[in-house]
């Protein structure tokens, strides 16, 4: 794994505009950054990331089965009592899920270490599935990448296939919803909807704020149609605590991601995974936090923090790092395993699982050890090293 400085495509901004990628620059700061890319060998991808992602995904689904049978685990994950039966029911009937992203620290040498599961509202999808793919094709055509370079990225094909597979189980009408004012979230649902349409599924877009409630406690769209299935790019735990939330368990509304994802997009899954698989090479030691002083070599994370908010980190040498943010409530502790540094940049690897298939990665790099919303998306390529050794 190497970080390679390269020349950006001269027309990348025009290409971004053509495909509706409007959030390549956020609040005047660059988000899409193709001045460099990460180069992997095929072995690093397949053995270092793809196989562990599928294994951890399977381990996570096994944990769901254990959690729904345990009031104690539901309590540890701070799942509000009124939603527990509904969540368990959604698992027992295997409500279909679509996608998730595992975040890893990885430098190409030791085993990738799982930081967390983003299994409810993962973003950076369009840039990983589409724009990164287009970058590779363009740079191959321009001769900026060695001939035969590849990319771990069948995210698009996997999304269309996944939608095609679950099409019969998606209730209609089917809407994609995200926060109205977030260009990034709107871009992500627009892309997912595009993939669903390509799988032959009729579906619409709706702002999460526009969802209505009928007198008999059902959810409606702007045309007063009762929504059959809602893809919501909006955290389940936020839906739970907002004013319409109490209607969810009895509204007959199908959700994607389904309610049982609340058990995985919760950092409480990390100590439970460690307890079930102690010493697993891709897991970091983790435990539920007792609120005491953070020892050296540990990180404290709230169950529900996102985008690197409210993280406290105490490095082995005693240095402390912390980020602010809106999240509070119960926390976990995870052994500190700092991100690797490549020329002063710290890449966090997002490994996409669509359906149950690990199908691609997207890399966000930050100048700090805690990846936040200041991170930039940097593309990657699979480049085989010279084969001279084989000949010799």
């Amino acid at each position, binding site marked *: 794994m190497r970080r390679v400085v390269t020349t950006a495509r001269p027309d990348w901004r025009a290409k971004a505009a053509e495909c509706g990628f409007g959030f390549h620059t956020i609040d005047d700061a660059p988000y899409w950054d193709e001045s460099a890319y990460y180069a992997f060998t095929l072995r690093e991808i397949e053995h270092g990331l793809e196989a562990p992602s599928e294994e951890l995904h399977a381990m996570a689904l096994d944990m769901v089965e254990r959690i729904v049978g345990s009031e104690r685990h539901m309590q540890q994950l701070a799942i509000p009592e009124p939603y527990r039966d509904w969540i368990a029911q959604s698992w027992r009937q295997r409500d279909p899920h679509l996608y998730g992203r595992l975040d890893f620290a990885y430098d190409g040498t030791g085993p990738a270490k799982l930081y967390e599961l983003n299994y409810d509202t993962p973003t950076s999808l369009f840039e990983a599935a589409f724009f990164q*793919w287009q970058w590779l094709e363009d740079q191959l055509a321009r001769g900026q990448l060695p001939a035969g370079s590849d990319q771990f990225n069948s995210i*698009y094909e996997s999304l269309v296939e996944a939608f*095609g597979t679950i099409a019969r189980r998606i209730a209609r009408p089917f809407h994609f919803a995200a*926060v109205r004012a977030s260009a990034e979230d709107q871009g992500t649902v627009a892309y997912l909807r*595009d993939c669903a*349409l*390509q799988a*032959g599924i009729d579906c619409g877009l709706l702002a999460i704020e526009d969802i209505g409630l009928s007198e008999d406690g059902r959810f409606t769209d702007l045309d007063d149609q009762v929504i059959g299935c809602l893809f919501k790019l909006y955290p389940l735990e936020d839906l739970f605590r907002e004013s319409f939330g109490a209607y969810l368990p009895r509204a007959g509304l199908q959700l994607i991601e389904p309610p049982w994802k609340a058990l995985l997009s919760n950092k409480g899954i990390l100590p439970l995974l460690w307890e079930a698989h102690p010493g697993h090479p891709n897991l970091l030691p983790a435990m539920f936090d007792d609120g005491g002083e953070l020892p050296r070599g540990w990180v404290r994370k709230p169950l529900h923090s996102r985008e690197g908010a409210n993280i406290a980190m105490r490095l082995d040498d005693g240095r402390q790092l912390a980020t602010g943010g809106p999240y509070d409530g119960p926390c976990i502790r995870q052994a500190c395993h700092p991100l690797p540094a490549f020329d002063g940049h710290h890449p966090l690897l997002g490994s996409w699982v669509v359906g149950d298939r690990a199908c691609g990665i997207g890399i966000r790099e930050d100048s700090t050890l805690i990846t936040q919303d200041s991170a930039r998306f940097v593309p990657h390529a699979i480049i085989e090293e010279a084969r001279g050794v084989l000949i010799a």
Partner: protein
Amino acid sequence: MKRSKTAALLLMSTAPLLLTACDRSESASREGLYTSVEACVAQTNDRDTCQQAFAKAQQDATATAPRFANRKACEASYGKEQCAERSDGASHSFFGPLMTGFFLSQMMSRNGVAANGFNSAPAFRDSNGGWQRPATGAGGVYRGGAGTAMVPVNATPNRAVTVSRSGFGSSGSSRGIGG
């Protein structure tokens, strides 16, 4: 190869990313399920489009209808007398349900006039009276060889008077959902 062979976009290159209340009508579509061309004309007042949609659906019906090895298996799903023998042109014959209706969908412009072009698809009715359509009308990447997956259709959508909105979204910030 570890990457997608292609990466297509259907609407994103043209559709606006930001939703606002006033541009909803730009992307509105009209879709109907009709059991005859006459029923379609009565609803849309557009005989040409209805006839073309019917003809195209009928043409697609052989390719996209579920396939059964024998009449009995087909009738178990679609009812007595509702199946016919078909051939895929390569001298393979099979049984499939008769088309009992067709879908027509059209994009509507801002002033409520149907835009040029349409999508149509055959509709089938199973033995329980439920309507179905082929799942991959728009040509998904993973179209199976032997017929297409069928999707149930809610032909009479539910309506309910909305009594309140904005009960979701109060936690939403401009960024930070993704994690």
